């Protein structure tokens, strides 16, 4: 293993040890028939939230948002947590990458 690889591992470990603690409020977002319900979801601004993405379809979906910097697969009939924020007030679109024609939505932070 090279010196740079060892240094890099050290760097990653030291940065990874900085972890955050308290649990943010949970907000639910449902996927049904390849659509997000609700398609527009109001969330509090300037605070971290835990988005619970509930996939009621049998097919997998990928919750993705460039604005939120999020990308996460949710398998059929499963629920995944996605931490979001703190967000400045505004509109943050997201989409389901596997069914992008229908699966479009946005968080409204206010």
């Amino acid at each position, binding site marked *: 293993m090279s010196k740079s690889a060892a240094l890099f591992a050290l760097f990653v470990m030291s940065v990874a040890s900085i972890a955050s603690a308290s649990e943010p409020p949970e907000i639910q977002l449902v996927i049904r028939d390849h659509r997000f319900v609700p398609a527009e979801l109001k969330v509090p601004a300037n605070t*971290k939230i835990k988005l619970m993405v509930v996939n009621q379809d049998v*097919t997998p*979906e990928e919750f993705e948002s460039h604005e939120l910097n*999020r990308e996460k697969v949710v398998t059929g009939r499963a629920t*995944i*947590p996605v931490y979001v924020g703190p967000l400045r007030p505004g509109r943050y679109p997201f989409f389901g990458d596997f069914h992008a024609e229908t699966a479009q939505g946005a968080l409204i932070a206010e």
Partner: protein
Amino acid sequence: MLAIWILVFREVLEAAMIVSIVAAATRGIAGRWRWIGSGILIGCAGAGLVAAGAEGIAGALSGMGQEWFNAGVLLAATTMIGWHVVWMARHGRQLASEAGRFGADVSAGRRPLTALMVVVALAVLREGSEVVLFAYGMLAGGSASGGLVTGGVLGLLSGVAAGVAMYAGLLRIPMRHFFRATNGLLILLAAGLAAAAAGFLNQADVLPTLADPLWNSSWLLTDDAWLGRALHALVGYSAQPTGMQALFYLSIVVLLSGGARLAAPRRDAIAAVPTPST
């Protein structure tokens, strides 16, 4: 069918960009296609396994298994590229200047080729598992399977074609600058992968973002534009990166270019190359 074509093309394109850089960077090393081919095959098998285990991965580590898994895969690939880059800095010039004489000397190249085989396998695994999950969803949802096959094959072929075109383009780099250029590309590729890993660690909420986003260049080039996607796969472009992602990116660039410089043999040592290693 078009939607399937585009999705498959997108995933294949990302892996193909990585494979083409690896293929170019190993120019002149005997047996490289076997290593690259093995990497692709292992990656395909891995993609199937990851897709099959997607639910288990997602549920692990209080719902953050996916983030840790992706970050782990990306950082492993970063490490392997780093290893290769430093090795190439030591031996690349020798390969370039003596490609004829030492062409059969694979033993020297065996170790770093293992590293790059792992890089190829991990790239294919990551992008491939999404394709498998998507295809499985189409089948499970009862969508037209004819369109799935046609779209999938077209996506695969066009993605591979883009990779081949990229490879052909890289080969046009003059030999004098060739390994410098491919090593530079590998460093940026590794930095981009590390930045993506930082993104997943941000997403898992284990690393602070430092700034979110650090900047927003969506007005210039969005992440979902084709150029944005290609640049993301090649050099880690992101329109709205976090501060931590930028920090990872810069750290890798500094570490690897510094490491390569330190590992590079001195010019006078190269002049005296025929002495066998002791």
